[in-house]
């Protein structure tokens, strides 16, 4: 009998079916890899398993050792022996390693914590795992890799039988990766079942017993890892036709609008780590340049570094219309004709409590409305054309932005940047979390803008989107350019191979 079985899981969000009948089984002592493109449904599936999405919010069955489980929250799944280690760490940095491991379960009598017992247990746990970490040290003083290992120790202290690891090696050094793999081998021997989510196919093939591939919320296949090749996995991950939703249109290219040389950006957490490493590219008027890459490959950091909004240390030169541009703040980039539709519109794009009009005119207010005194009617008139062109559905320009649907919010952000009359437009995940209809309208608009002679740089986690829209694609892997393809030669397999660091 399998340790865990998930049967026909269906999870819907408004307008999106994130999981469409996914099944997965895990045996005791098995190492099971879960792979798929960004957005394939891996994280959603794990949130179902952990009770983050409680029973009743999805359909399908979860069986633990054959008996049905209905988790109402994380506490329930923890009690059932499931531990999930998410990408974002959930440790309290100010507390010590020991305090973190036993947070909420401190050995205590009458509410008074028995510190010596706590640290004794913590020390034993860490030594058993072969970790040389002082349990009294504050977590914030450890490196990211060691923090990750503490997180794993914490999960194991709860006697987990099922451990889920979501991209655990992304922040680890090579030595730390080896330590982690050693720990995982030990767990296997103790009969713990592990689900391992990773984009690193070499690791996947080295460690796993079985591999399950997800695509568009469905299970494509589950294979025994022995004899499986990376090529098979990649073709199953992307195996999807680039359909008619991308209106193929020939763009005419003009002269180079933007050229960047040697862009390098350092991590804010780890000043010695390069998130973007010596990236150069150029984009011409009328051209759509796609930047592909997996999560954490440095795509957003690259755009932010050019736009002057990257918070960490960075270097490199930027040439606009043939002359070197000094950009240290977004306002410099805007005045040089760069627009930036940022990812995560709610966090970086919109004033949610303010009107469509206030949002759309914000980046070009002084030009549209007047240097100091604003002019409502002039603003309304200026916003009217993008509102119609982008088909923003709202009662009036005075509708509050936060009440709009995701698609309309995204169009408001796009409209804001069009009103700055940019020469170069950056788009970072322009269609994330919006419905198909709005997506197509945004695709059409991107093509139309390129035709008007705008140079466009498009970052997207959805590979078909990049392949369908871009005239040329550059692929990032761990901050460096690992491939460049013209539209004709950019196949999903080639791009995915470059993005996963497979050298061909």
């Amino acid at each position, binding site marked *: 009998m399998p340790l865990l079985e998930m049967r026909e899981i269906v999870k819907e969000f408004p307008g999106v079916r994130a999981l469409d009948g996914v099944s997965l089984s895990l045996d005791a002592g098995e190492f099971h890899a879960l792979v798929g493109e960004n957005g394939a449904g891996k994280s959603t599936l794990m949130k179902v398993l952990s009770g983050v999405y409680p029973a009743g919010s999805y359909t399908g069955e979860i069986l633990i050792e054959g008996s049905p489980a209905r988790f109402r929250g994380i506490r329930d799944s923890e009690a059932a022996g499931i531990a999930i280690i998410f990408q974002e760490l959930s440790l309290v940095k100010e507390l010590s390693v020991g305090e973190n491991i036993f947070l909420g379960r401190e050995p205590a009598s009458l509410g008074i914590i028995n510190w010596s017992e706590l640290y004794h247990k913590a020390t034993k746990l860490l030594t058993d795992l072969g970790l040389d970490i002082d349990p009294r040290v504050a977590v914030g003083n450890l490196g990211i890799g060691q923090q990750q290992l503490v997180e794993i120790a914490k999960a194991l202290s709860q006697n987990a039988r099922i451990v889920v690891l979501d991209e655990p090696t992304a922040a680890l050094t090579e030595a730390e990766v080896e330590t982690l793999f050693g720990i995982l081998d030990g767990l296997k021997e103790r009969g713990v079942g592990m689900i391992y989510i990773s984009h690193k196919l070499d690791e996947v093939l080295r460690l796993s017993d079985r591999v399950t591939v997800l695509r568009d919320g469905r299970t494509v296949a589950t294979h025994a890892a022995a004899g499986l090749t990376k090529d098979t996995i990649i073709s199953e991950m992307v195996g999807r036709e680039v359909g008619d939703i991308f209106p193929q249109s020939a763009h005419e290219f003009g002269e180079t609008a933007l050229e960047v040389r040697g862009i390098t950006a350092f991590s804010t957490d780890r000043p010695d780590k390069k998130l973007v490493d010596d990236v150069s590219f150029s984009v011409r008027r009328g051209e759509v340049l796609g930047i592909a890459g997996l999560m954490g490959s440095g795509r957003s950091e690259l755009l932010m570094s050019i736009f002057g909004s990257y918070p960490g240390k960075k270097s490199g030169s930027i040439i606009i219309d043939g002359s070197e541009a000094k950009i240290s703040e*977004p*306002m410099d980039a805007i005045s040089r004709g760069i627009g930036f539709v940022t990812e995560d519109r709610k*966090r*970086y794009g919109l*004033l949610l*409590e303010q009107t469509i009009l206030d949002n759309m005119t914000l980046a070009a*207010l002084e030009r549209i409305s007047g240097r*100091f005194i604003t002019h409502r*009617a002039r603003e309304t008139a200026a916003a009217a054309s993008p509102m119609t062109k982008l088909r923003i559905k709202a009662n009036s320009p005075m509708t509050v932005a936060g009440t709009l649907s995701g698609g309309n919010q995204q169009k408001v952000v796009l409209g804001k940047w069009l009103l700055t009359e940019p020469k170069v437009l950056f788009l970072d995940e322009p269609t994330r979390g919006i419905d198909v209809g709005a997506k197509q309208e945004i695709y059409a608009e991107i093509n139309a803008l390129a035709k008007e002679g705008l140079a466009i740089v498009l970052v997207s986690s959805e590979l078909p989107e990049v392949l369908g829209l871009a005239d040329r694609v550059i692929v990032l892997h761990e901050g460096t350019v690992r491939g460049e393809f013209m539209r004709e030669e950019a196949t999903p397999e080639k791009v995915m191979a470059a993005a996963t660091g497979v050298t061909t």
Partner: protein
Amino acid sequence: MMKSIAKLFDASSLRAFAMIAVLAVIWGYFHWATGQIFLTPRNLSNLMTQMSVTGIIAVGMLMLIVSANIDLSVGSVLGLAGGIAAYTLTNLGYPIPVAIGLALLAGIAIGVFQGVLTAKAGIPAFIVTLGGLLAWRGAVKWQLGGNTVPIADDTFKMIGQGNIPAWVGWVLAGIAVAFVIAMAIRSQRALKEYGLGEGNIAAAVAKSLIPIGAILIFIWVMNSYQGVPVPVLIFVGVALIGSFLMSSTTFGRYLYAIGGNAEAARLSGINNSRNVIVVYGILGALTGIAALIYTARVGSAAPDAGTLKELDAIAACVIGGASLMGGRGTVFGACLGALIMASLDNGMSLLNVRDFMQDIIKGSILVAAVGLDMMGKK
């Protein structure tokens, strides 16, 4: 009919009407409870004079709160600026313009200094101005040597105690009415010019009747006693300019953007730190003006002048619908909030409510007002 009324007034005006209704209830109750004393021209004139110091600071505080910042030091800065004015006049014997100039300069300099510490050095506004609350109060005590400095100059005292002649009041009312009508017509013309609608001038004038009525009643009531008090005139001027800045300039719009989503504002090319420093400077200048009125009204500068004024100003903004998280609030709301607080003070004093009871009631009303606001949003 209902529909057209609803169309005429959006959500924020509805809120303003609710507040005016609350104010009407409070006034009605006090008028009844005090045996028809509260709503007399004499008392209303006193009430307006009492609120003008808090009101002037509240206008600047509102602008700062909208940008998601705060200033806890204004009470101490008021004391210091007043002390500087009194010391300059009485101890040093300099002429009035020098005293006024130095008091304003002190307010602006302190504001800009605290703004730089917040916006450039990144020290949280709460901490910077909490430090200011202590340090500037210490500075007043040092400067005045712990004594109260009297002011003998009657011309200076006019700032806090004078009234303007009735005919000047009417002339100002006439100018204000003409301005309101001109603005209404301008906005309708603009609508037509940009092809956004018919431009209904009759409706625009009808909508202006409320402010016009308010202006005329206000001047009439004030003239029925001794004419518009100088502090009230200054307060109304400050409120009008502040309201214009917040609603009709790029500067005001940027403050709402910075308070609403600082990161989105910066990514849209706004110079967040410069705008925040300017607001601190404006609040400092307004605190200087308030200090001059306060000192002139009392006729002396005391080491503890202005204590707790920061809390009155913040309370006025919050009662008036501002969010301490930033991005939301109006100057008009803050002024109404200040008027409500001043009405409670004035009415409860007339009723001889003990001072500790007054504090308890005001505190409860502050919390209840925000609580109701939160409930209304759900």
